[in-house]
């Protein structure tokens, strides 16, 4: 029990004097904190508040100089019932209360000044865990935008979603998200949101993207060694915050050369998204219902299983041609 200072933190109006609101995947998020550094981190997310619905999440964050932990550097998540615990290494500790739609947390001074951590880890974690309680379904897929229409790329881990995302971006598609897409239903219309998270490419992606030759892979949040790249900087790609989902491709690798597009039935697409979503506890019937509703609505999109034996650039070209001929 060394290197740790005991802390008792009470989250109330007195200890959290600074307040603001911002938008997280189309959801209003009320932030209270004791730290003007944390307040400042939220500012870039305040610009789309007008499009938010009436539901809201709460984040209550205390920056504490006493927080010091020798907890493992990789984030550690555990959940029971409506509570989820997140140890964020030396950066802090959070609890997510899915019944009260609230995150309370403790951040080290370094983490409270770290915009990269805030944008690429803390906010995606928050909407990933609390989103289902406010009608935002976190789905394991990439999303790109082609002239205002959204294209979701689903598939199992290792199928090549991220390399295909970059290949499509290099053809002019705008990147909305790479690994996780947050789909929200507002006024009977689905919107797929991204979180401006970096694109994660495995080290062997360098065979397709020579731009990676100067990039250094590092250990990512889930322990994988990968390049985490900002597509706007490395590939000069366009990015968008959201898109209107129209098409879904379920990516499958095959040894057979060429690309084939096999129509997929709505019920099979719904089953795939349900199967790949984190199980929710019985304490959250409304969240289960909301998520299933979004998945059902999304499964009405045109969907194909895309079997490809080609490299990502050729597969992206095949998708582009396929969509142009529709």
């Amino acid at each position, binding site marked *: *029990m060394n290197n*740790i*200072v*005991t*802390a*008792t*933190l*009470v*989250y*109330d*109006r007195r200890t959290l004097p600074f307040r603001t609101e911002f938008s997280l995947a189309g959801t209003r998020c*009320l932030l*209270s904190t004791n730290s003007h550094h944390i307040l400042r981190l939220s500012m870039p997310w305040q610009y789309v508040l007008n499009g938010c619905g009436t539901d*809201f999440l*709460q984040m*209550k964050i205390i920056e504490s100089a006493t*927080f010091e*932990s*020798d*907890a*493992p550097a990789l984030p*550690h*998540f*555990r*959940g*029971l*019932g*409506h*509570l*989820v*615990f997140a*140890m964020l290494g030396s950066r802090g*500790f959070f*609890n997510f*209360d899915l*019944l*009260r739609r*609230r995150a*309370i*947390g*403790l951040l080290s001074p370094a983490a409270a000044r770290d915009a990269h951590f805030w944008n690429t880890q803390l906010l995606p974690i928050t909407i990933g865990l609390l989103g289902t309680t406010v009608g935002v379904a976190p789905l394991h897929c990439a999303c790109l935008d082609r002239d205002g229409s959204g294209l979701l790329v689903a598939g199992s881990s290792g199928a090549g979603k991220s390399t295909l995302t970059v290949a499509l971006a290099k053809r002019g598609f705008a990147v909305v998200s790479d690994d996780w897409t947050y789909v929200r239903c507002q006024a009977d219309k689905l919107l797929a949101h991204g979180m401006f998270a970096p694109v994660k490419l495995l080290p062997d992606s360098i065979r397709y993207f020579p731009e990676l030759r100067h990039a250094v892979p590092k250990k990512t949040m889930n322990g994988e060694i990968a390049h985490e790249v900002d597509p706007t900087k490395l590939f000069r790609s366009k990015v968008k915050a959201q898109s209107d989902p129209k098409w879904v491709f379920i990516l499958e690798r095959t040894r057979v050369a060429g690309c084939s597009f096999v129509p997929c039935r709505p019920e099979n697409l719904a089953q795939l998204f349900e*199967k*790949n*979503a*984190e*199980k929710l*506890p019985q304490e959250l019937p409304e969240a289960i219902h909301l998520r299933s509703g979004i998945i059902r609505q999304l499964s009405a999109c045109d969907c194909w299983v895309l079997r490809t034996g080609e490299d990502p650039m050729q597969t992206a070209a095949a998708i582009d041609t396929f969509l142009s001929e529709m």
Partner: protein
Amino acid sequence: MPLDSANYQDPLDLLRRFIPTPYRTRFRIGGALVVVETNDFALLPELPLETVLNESFPSNLSWKLVRDHDEHGLLQEPSHLICGGLTVVAMGAACLLGVDRERGELLGFIGAEIDPRTFQESLVPLLCRLSLEAMETNAEEWFDGWNEEAADA
């Protein structure tokens, strides 16, 4: 082999929410009836058992304690986070606790390296203290906290 090892491989339960907790007991602390369920016999507290096994008599508090066989850290000094009716205690990843006073629940993960003696001598007193605090919350303070949250919203 731990009872729940199969669940650890389930990609749909990355948070370990659905680990079965088949061991159950009931005991009293103060005047309160507490029901404990866990996946590890060693996490049943060595406290005087409630001998009146009337399942229809409601408990005041339920504990759900999960032995986290994948977490091998040791206990660290606790951080207590208190927000309205919820108290969260983290002692590193080896001990994560949440006490929801409104729902009468204490939920927690205990790491693999926390031996039975440490659990009984260090953690059970903490769990009992948290439980008593949860049940003895001053009603006025509780409603103040609740009203404040409503005002925040």
